[in-house]
């Protein structure tokens, strides 16, 4: 009783929470509008959701201009440059996904209002994730971003595959959460606190306690599911193929980024002294994820599945810097952040082209891209740029992302880092082999059914395509644009 009475409300920094609150307000607004105007409001929904995301960027800008690091709830929730950069990335990715969704959701006669509400909710979870520096807030953010995503994956409710996608994603996600929670309980038991700062102090020194190792590994494995790292990737291809394509793009980009953000915070803030556990784990996982993701991607015939496996492999590339977390922490964080930012645009761009082409061909087979260059040269060139970026070929954006990996590895130096570098190099080559299959279809093959009618690209898709294309090329020619954000975000994540 005493304790309850002694409860005092924690100090709230409203400015720091403004992005989350704005997002929440718009999510609620959409629901309210839906209840009042019902079907008549459908037209306005994507606009409203998009405005919500753009409005949320405003407080992020003011916070960035303000520049002070804000910490709340005993260090459990931190708003620093690192979190701001990533919040902005989530919101922009979300905005592009909404542009991709407009026509797909409208034409498919799916629930519209709920779709955008759930999308905003999931984004709220991601935005929170980038500020969470505490096991509990990480977990809450994770569930907040995942549960709407489970539903979104099953949005094509008439399709068996979509239901399978949702169910598979849900079951694997819950299983991962359970594993992670168990790990968290072990870590909490040893550290006596859930905040990352305290965990770092308690676990970071001396010989590793077997329980601590188990706890750390379980937590990391939980997130390895989230970022679909091999061998925890099995849900991804089925879910990606079955889910509505915009949702797939959302999962492949935003959701994966959220998992990576959590990993960055865990590895660099919570377990910085435990590189004896963390580094070998990530070395192995990264090497496996790149290689196996790529090898399976070689055998795919469906473009969404191919992009799914390519996404698995790209996730492997992103995991590479974690393997040198202790030797080159600043470079490693920078590399992951830059990779995520560039990946978001190039991958969303590729999915946008897939959506646009599917509007005409109604097919996801790679063969259906035959002769695309003949009847839709613009889309073919755009896709070529995105695939070149994914493969890491200058001057399209992806090369700088890969460059960042190599830079982190060589900064760390040593045989392990160098050998991982060679594995990255080999995988870059394998990856091109399957990206080339799409190029071959688009450029070298005839149109499969002789149907050379041009593709009608709707305004929203055109906008999504323009944003992603410009960003992908700009990052390649002037990598300083994205490099700056990478550099800014490093300093604060490492507390310096």
């Amino acid at each position, binding site marked *: 009783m005493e304790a309850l009475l002694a409860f005092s409300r924690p100090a709230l920094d409203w400015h720091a929470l403004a992005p989350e609150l704005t997002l929440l307000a718009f999510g609620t607004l959409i629901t309210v509008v839906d209840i009042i105007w019902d079907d008549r409001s459908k037209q306005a929904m994507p606009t409203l959701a998009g405005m919500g995301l753009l409005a949320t960027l405003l407080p992020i800008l003011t916070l960035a201009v303000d520049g002070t690091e804000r910490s709340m709830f005993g260090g459990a929730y931190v708003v620093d440059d690192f979190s701001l950069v990533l919040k902005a990335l989530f919101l922009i990715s979300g905005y592009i996904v909404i542009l991709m969704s407009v026509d797909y959701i409208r034409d498919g006669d799916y629930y519209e209002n709920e779709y955008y509400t759930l999308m905003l909710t999931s984004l709220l979870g991601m935005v929170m994730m980038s500020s969470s520096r505490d096991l509990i807030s990480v977990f809450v953010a994770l569930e907040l971003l995942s549960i709407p995503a489970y539903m979104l994956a099953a949005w094509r409710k008439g399709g068996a595959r979509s239901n399978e996608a949702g169910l598979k994603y849900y079951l694997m996600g819950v299983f991962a959460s359970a594993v992670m929670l168990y790990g968290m309980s072990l870590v909490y038991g040893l550290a006596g606190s859930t905040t990352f700062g305290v965990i770092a102090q308690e676990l970071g020194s001396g010989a590793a306690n077997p329980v601590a190792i188990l706890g750390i590994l379980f937590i990391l494995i939980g997130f390895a599911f989230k970022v679909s790292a091999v061998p925890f990737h099995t849900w991804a291809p089925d879910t990606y193929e079955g889910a509505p394509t915009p949702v797939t793009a959302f999962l492949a980009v935003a959701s994966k980024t959220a998992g990576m953000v959590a990993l960055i915070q865990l590895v660099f803030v919570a377990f910085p002294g435990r590189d004896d556990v963390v580094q070998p784990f990530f070395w192995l996982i990264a090497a496996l994820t790149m290689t196996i993701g790529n090898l399976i991607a070689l055998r795919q015939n469906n473009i969404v599945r191919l992009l799914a496996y390519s996404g698995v492999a790209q996730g492997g590339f992103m995991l590479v810097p974690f393997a040198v977390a202790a030797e080159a922490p600043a470079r490693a964080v920078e590399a992951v952040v830059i990779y995520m930012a560039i990946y978001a645009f190039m991958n969303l761009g590729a999915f946008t082209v897939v959506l646009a082409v599917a509007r005409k061909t109604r097919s996801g087979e790679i063969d259906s891209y035959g002769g695309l260059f003949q009847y839709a040269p613009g889309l073919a060139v755009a896709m070529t740029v995105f695939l070149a970026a994914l493969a890491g070929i200058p001057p399209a954006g992806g090369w700088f992302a890969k460059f960042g990996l190599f830079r982190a590895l060589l900064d760390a130096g040593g045989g392990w880092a160098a050998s991982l570098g060679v594995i990255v190099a080999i995988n870059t080559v394998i990856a091109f082999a399957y990206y080339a299959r799409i*190029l*071959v279809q688009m450029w070298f093959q005839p149109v499969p059914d002789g149907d050379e009618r041009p593709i009608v690209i709707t305004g929203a898709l055109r906008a999504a395509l323009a944003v992603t294309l410009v960003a992908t090329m700009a990052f390649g020619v002037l990598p300083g644009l994205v490099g700056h954000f990478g550099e800014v975000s490093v300093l604060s994540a490492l507390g310096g």
Partner: protein
Amino acid sequence: MEVTGFDTWVLSLAVFLPLVGALVIMLIPKAYEMELKLVALGSSLMALVVGAYIAVQFDYGAAGELQFVVDKGWIDVINSRYIVGLDGLSLPLLLLSLVVVPLCLIYSWNHIPDPGNPKAFFVLLLILSTGMNGSFVAQDMILFFVFFEVVLLPMYFLIGVWGGEDRRYASLKFFLYTLFGSALMIISFLALFFLSKDASGELLQTFDMRVLTDVAGVGIIKSTQVWIFAGLFMGFGIKVPMFPFHTWLPDAHTQAPTVGSVILAAVLLKLGTYGFIRIAIPFLPEGAIAWAPWIGLLAVIGIIYGALGCLAQKDMKRLIAFSSVAHMGFVMLGIATLTDFGINAAVFGMIAHGLITGMLFFVAGSIKERYHTLEISRLGGLLKAAPRMGWILGFASMASLGLPGLAGFWGEFPAILAAYNPGAGMPEETFRTYMVIAAIGTVLAAGYLLWLYQRTAFGEPTEEFAGHEIADVNRDEWIAWTPFLIGIVLFGIWPNLIFNVTDDVVSGITATVEAIAAGS
């Protein structure tokens, strides 16, 4: 030299004018075919005019120094800068690249290979041109890397879309090989970035090629140099291509459309050898000394293997492709000697091979267009059917086999001579053995080229084509070919035109290598 006014722009103009042309073409609708072609030719000719201006303004007395240098911020976060400049080593190669592209455009003017689409074809050629020109003037490793890679996709599409029957296989093979090499190359660049120290042991952390040339790898221990050199060797060696990484070349050349083959032979392969001379050797002299005997070995294997490969070919284009492997072997042998004489010969060999083999591919392309086959056994009597083309083929073959008085001679003969007396600290017996083998290679070269010429040009036309009218060299071909022919003769009788320009740079490099060899 203080660079001011217009001179600060010339190199960037030479590099980017073709790209601007490509962007303009993309905005012109396909139906305006003549306008498209004129813009393409115009932009590449403007770049050539800028190139001529550079050649005139170039201070030949200071050919060993970089001129027209521009140094501007680019990617600050990784300390990479937009640095371009050119010296006596870059100048001839840049000019070669600037000359070849407009000639290829003229050659393709009315001969866009199947499946047509001049718009895309010309756009790709122009992008390719920007990548090649940029590679020869970039003085920052990251900038060099970007230009080096820009070349890949256009070439991939040129082979893949406009190529022969096996084009998919050939284009992918070309791409994967080169990509693997460049991935290892960028790792080596980064290693250089992190490990290079200046004379006082301070870490440099720079991609600036001028600085890295100056420090010449003093801070990097030998075993590390050997590793980094290995990465560069893969990157550049695949591009050259050196035995045993050459297998992409015959496929790519055979399948590529004519101008694709010409550009591949005339310029792209040179990016590899240029990389050795510009980057690998001056940055890592100790690594170079350790690797040189092995490079020499692979080079002479390439010479013999390429020649034997030629003797086994039934297809004329494939034969020329294999002869490329042999010729680039001579170039690499020259480089491997690490002597002033040898590397100068290598640079000369690069230019000569570019002109001669480019010419041979042009002729092969025109023969293919007329006979619809390049099977040597089905050809014959070219001198009767189309005498001018027959004579040009003969002339290019003679140049290719290294006839004194023509350009090919000055690439091969000094390279062989240089092997007699390799640079300081290198095994003399080994290189003398290489010399003998390379000399045998020249005999084989004479063998396969004369054999090719006999079977295609002498005698009566085969029954199959007996009644056919075979058109002789037409106007477009004359315009495109004449500069090649003039170059082959001019450099053949006056080799100092090139040697004088390149020697300052090359002797600077070999002096560094010798100093390091003497010190260790």
